[in-house]
């Protein structure tokens, strides 16, 4: 069993819709939760970083963490074609840098 599971998609949505992405993890020791965006032929770019359970908002992006269910989510409101990318969740135990990444979900936002 992988430590971090993520549906690879692709997830296709019309422009303006809400994009909902999620990951599940198996190790309850994970404490730090991140979402990265990766455009084709580019390196991952950090979008959101959370430590505790609950919600965190940043502009059109909302990250949710439910440690009791070992489930994390990312929501993108008012999606734009420029949001078309692969979204990776990443989880760490001690903020020491050994990130466990999900496989990534490919998102396509159609005009």
């Amino acid at each position, binding site marked *: 069993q992988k430590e971090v599971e993520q549906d690879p998609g692709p997830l296709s949505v019309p422009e303006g819709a809400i994009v909902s992405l999620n990951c599940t993890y198996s190790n309850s020791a994970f404490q730090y939760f991140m979402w990265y965006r990766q455009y084709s032929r*580019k*390196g*991952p770019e950090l979008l959101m970083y959370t430590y505790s359970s609950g919600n965190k908002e940043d502009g059109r992006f909302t990250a949710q963490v439910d440690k009791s269910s070992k489930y994390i989510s990312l929501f993108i409101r008012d999606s734009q074609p420029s949001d078309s990318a692969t979204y*990776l969740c990443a989880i760490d135990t001690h*903020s020491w*840098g050994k*990130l466990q990444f999900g*496989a*990534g979900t490919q998102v396509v936002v159609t005009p």
Partner: protein
Amino acid sequence: EAGVAQSPRYKIIEKRQSVAFWCNPISGHATLYWYQQILGQGPKLLIQFQNNGVVDDSQLPKDRFSAERLKGVDSTLKIQPAKLEDSAVYLCASSYPGTSGGQFFGPGTRLTVL
């Protein structure tokens, strides 16, 4: 602020050949990471340096992969000899120590082994 630089961007070699990748991290970032990203998968950490010391290389195939970070700045990752399954994107990232979520990635080197 300049980002993480990597070269070359693309490399095609035959199996059993050797190859080296170079990374220049963001100025002031003491921690440097090398990841391997196989098509359709998330990045997998190969090795983590803090300054010029190795913090974690538990997932580095040491029979064929080696990495060094001289003077605590630039780093090189070498594969010798390469296998077909080494075809992947090799990503370099850097951060301040103890800031797991603050890893900044370079554009990667896409390696194809024929």
